[in-house]
Structure formats: C-alpha cells, structure tokens
C-alpha cells in the first residue's frame, strides 16, 4: 500500500512518539537500580540550589540533592502510576460497560451513575475523592481510577450495543454458545479497539492531572521524587533557581507529548470516520 506523504509523516511522528515513550519506560524501570536510593536522603544544605554543571547536569534542589537523579527516579513513580490507573479504569469500565450492553436493567442504572460522574470535571472530582481519602499518592491514584472508569464504561457499552446486533452473535447463539463466553470471548475483543485507541492519550492526560493535583498539595512529600511535587517545591525558588521547575516540567511535557503523538495516530487508525 502506498501511503500519501501526509500519512507517512503522521506515522513517523507516531513512531517517534512511541520510541520516546518506550525509552522513558526503560529509563523509569532502570532508574531505581542505577541510581542509589541514598541520593534522595543525601541532604546537603551547603550544596543547595547549585546551577547545572558537569557534575550535576540539572543542578541541585533546595535540599542540595542532584536534580537529575530526582527527575529520573520520579519517572518510575509517575509512569507506573499513570499506566496502572488507566489499566485499572479500563478493566473496570470494560467489564461494566460490556455487562451494561447486555443486561438492560443494569444498563439504566449504570448509565445514570456515569452521567453523574461525567457531569463533574475530572480534576475536580479526583480532588474531592482524594481529599476525603486523605492526602497520599495511593489515594490520589484510587481517586483517578474512580474518575476515569465511566469514560470507558460508556464507550464499551456503545460498542457492545452495536456489536451484539451483528450476524456472528446470532450464529454463536445458534451454535449453543453461552452468553458469558459470547460476551467475553467474542464481543469484547471485537468491540475493544476504540478503548485501546484512547488509552495512550489517556495515560498522558492522567499523568498531567496527577502531576497537577500533586502540585496543588496531594504530593508524596520531599523524600519521594514525583514530578508535580518537584515543581511545587521548586516554585519557591523560581527566580533564583529556575531549573528546579524547568526540568521536571519538561519531563512531564516530553512524556505527555510522546503519548499524544501515539494517541493521535491511534485514534485516526482505529476510527476511520475521523480520517478525512
């Protein structure tokens, strides 16, 4: 198949995004093994707020710690948390959405519940849930799962509703295949593409939302590196030591941009209606 120049260009960008994201994953996974954990506790106030140089490429933070190590260590937490949040939300949303598409009574109730959840802005709802549960990264992640599952539930339900009318479902029934098997072995795999297509961009969105909430106060404290709270603690020194804010933010931007490049391509690839 000969791709038009524009398609090729898009694919190249998507491939670039994927490559960047995979490298970030590797960096995040390797960071705790390569960088000694003692760096986080290595407080040296004499060396604080040093500008970037050959020894400390990103400079040092307000505790005198090497900022590059902190940013790299944070890659682990930020990436694994946002991926885990999206994966859990997809698991819950797909399961409930598939059931809603089949059980009419459940459908009505579930759709009213998702209406309510979707009527509150993501960040605001996550903030309320996490603030009731108590300030911690785990509670923040739980809150974000609560916020994101209805999106997948609605998507999956719509897909299942259109999929179940197709002839192959009737054929399966004629063959005597039971409902659970039909739903989870045949319909869900056929209906799941739009969910998968959203996933990459959503990991980016969850990452930004998590960093933002961690910035306004849900962060894990100074001894657990996390991008949003690194920015929060660096903001006090923005005019003296701007690198404290610039580098962690650039890490968020790079991650989220790479995911959006992949997500943009995935959305078009899985949804031919948008390909114009």
């Amino acid at each position, binding site marked *: 198949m000969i791709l038009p120049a524009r398609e090729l260009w898009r694919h190249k960008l998507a491939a670039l995004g994927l490559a960047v994201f995979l490298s970030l994953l590797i960096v995040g996974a390797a960071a705790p093994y390569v960088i000694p954990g003692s760096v986080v506790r290595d407080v040296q106030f004499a060396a604080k707020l040093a500008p970037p140089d050959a020894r400390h490429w990103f400079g040092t933070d307000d505790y005198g710690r090497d900022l590059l190590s902190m940013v790299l260590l944070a890659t682990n937490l930020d990436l694994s948390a946002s991926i885990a949040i999206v994966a859990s939300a997809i698991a819950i949303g797909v399961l409930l959405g598939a059931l809603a598409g089949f059980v009419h009574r459940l459908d009505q109730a579930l759709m009213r519940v998702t*209406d*309510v959840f979707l*009527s509150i802005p993501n*960040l*605001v709802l996550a*903030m309320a849930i996490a603030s009731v549960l*108590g*300030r911690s990264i785990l509670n923040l992640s739980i809150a974000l799962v609560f916020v994101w599952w209805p999106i997948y539930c609605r998507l999956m339900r719509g897909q299942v509703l259109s999929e179940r009318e197709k002839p192959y479902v009737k054929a399966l029934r004629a063959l005597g295949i039971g409902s659970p098997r039909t739903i989870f072995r045949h319909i869900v795999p056929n209906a799941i593409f739009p969910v998968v297509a959203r996933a990459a961009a959503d990991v980016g969105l969850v990452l930004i939302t998590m960093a933002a909430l961690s*910035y306004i106060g849900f962060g894990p404290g100074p001894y657990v590196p996390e991008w949003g709270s690194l920015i929060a603690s660096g903001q006090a020194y923005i005019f003296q030591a701007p690198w404290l804010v610039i580098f962690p933010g650039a890490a*968020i931007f790079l991650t989220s941009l790479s995911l959006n490049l992949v997500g943009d391509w995935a959305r078009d690839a899985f949804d031919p209606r948008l390909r114009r």
Partner: protein
Amino acid sequence: MGLPEYIVKRLAGLGLVLVGVSMVVFVLLRGVPGVDPLAAYITPGLPMSSDALNGLKQELHLDQPLPVQYFYYVAGLLSGDWGYSRTAAQSVIVALLERLPATVELAVSAVLLSTLIGVPAGMLAALRRDRAPDLAVRIVSLAGISFPVFWLGIILQLVFFYYLGRLGLPNLPSRGRVGDLIALEYPLAPITGFYLFDSLAEGNFPFFISALRHLVLPAFTLSLIGLATVVRIMRASMLEVLRQDYMLLARSKGLPLRTVLVRHALRNAITPVLTTAGTTLGILLGGAVVVETVFSWPGIGRLAAQGILNNDSVLVVGFTLFVATMMVLVNLVVDILYAVVDPRVRY
C-alpha cells in the same frame, strides 16, 4: 414538542443529575468506609472536647441512619447550609460566592481567548488542509494539550514578570488580581465583583489598567487548556462544512470568497464549538484550581486548593458540588440558546 416543553424536559434531566451529584458528594462526606465524617471539622493539633464533638454529631445528625442524614443534608443544601469551612472561617456557600466573581472573570476571559485564537486557527487549518498552516496548527495544538499548564504558568511568570523586569522592560504582574498600591490609592467600590466591569463603570481607569494587566498571564495560561479542543473541533467541523453542496453553490453564484467563508462556512461550522462551550467551561473551572494557585488569584479554585492543604473536605466537597451545579446550568443555557439560534435543532 415546543421549546417550553423542551426546556422543562431538559430541566428534569438535569435535576436528576444534580440529585446524583448530591448523592456522590454525600457519600464522600459521610459514607466512605474507614473515614470519620467528623475528622473534616477538626483542625489538626487542636483536639475538641468530647462535649463539643457530641454537639457537632447531633448538629450534623450523625447519630441518625445514613438515608435520614442524606435527607437532612439535602435540606441543608437547599436552604443554603453547605457546612462550615475551617479554611475560610466562613460558611462554605458564602466563601464560594464571595470568590466566584474572580474565577468567573478569569474563566470567561480564558474562554474568550481560546475561542478568539482557536476558531481562526481551526478555520485556517481546514482551508489549508494538509499544507504547512494545517501541519503547524496541528503540531502546536498537540503540543498545547501536552503542556502541564501549571508549569507553563510558572515559566510565563519567570519570563514576563522576572526577566522582562530585570531587563528594565515593561513587565506583567505575576500575582493577584490588582496592584496593592493601586487598590489603596484608587479604591474600588464593589458592584458586581468583576473588577474590569466595576472599574469601567466607576470610571476608575488606573484600577482597570492594573486589573487588566494582572489578568493577562493567568487568563492566557488557562486558555491553553481549552484551546486545543476548540482548534480540533473547529477544524473537523469546518472540513465537514466545506464539503457541503451549499458551499459550492455559494461560490458558483459568484459570491466573494470572504462572504462565503464568513456568512456560510463560519456560521455553520461554529455551532459544535458553541455546543462544547459548557464542557470547556467545566474543564476550565477544574484548571482554575491549578492556575489560580500558580498566580495567587483569589478565586474559588485557590480556596479549594487551600482547603486540600488543611484537610478541609467540607470545603473541597462543597466546591465540587458548586462546580458541578455551575456546569449543569451552563450546559442548560447553552442547549437552550442552541435550540433558539439554530432552527434545525429537533428537540
């Protein structure tokens, strides 16, 4: 079905959503396993006597079963009792309403900015589809949704406040709604609470200029949250409109390109942007929490963020209910306007 019936039907649906939201909010405050509903009322380090705790328990009807509590809670909400915020040292609803104009001024400016930039950009991208302008607009909007806005806000402060100031160039203020000295020298008697409007109405121009300069950076930062969405929707809907037969007809009957673009294309293509305005405003109200914190903007978002630091969940949850209610109302208004403006809408 006529318009009045449509409005009634929409109101009923939205009422249901609001009842649902109140239930979610109630469960958060009273029914989360392992969380003591009284904890939100106790300032850490300031323990209350058991008498005071028991009094509070009775006042909040915590000794009653949950459904009864819910009844009392909703009755309280309807009568304006949204609980007491330790952070603001005020009743929650008063604290929110007092700071609402600041947030609305910021959010509306941001919506205007993202529309004023986003609509022409989306149109341009659609008209020059797949050429350089389209690619540029798409890359910029892709980068736009990838920015953590709170980070961008801090960087803008660094550049437009600090670096410009150090170079001795005119710079932009980075914190608050108006200069402290200006507010002392040219005091403003509040009418609506919207500084720009009030100062103009009173002819207080120094105040107006100061308020406007304070608004630039936060409004621009906040507008970036909605900008990418506006561009994307505008581009897609413009592409759709450009394929319609009436566009060909309009051109072939000799109308100038300009007229065709503005009168035929823009008017038809802009409706999806307007429909999503309600949702966009909701997203911006969420973003306001973060942007107001960055710029020390004294609105409801910063108050909620302060509530988080104080473990003041009465305030934070009240804020959530408030934002959800506003979103529902804005969506209702948008729907009705849409039905009035566009005769093709079938209710």
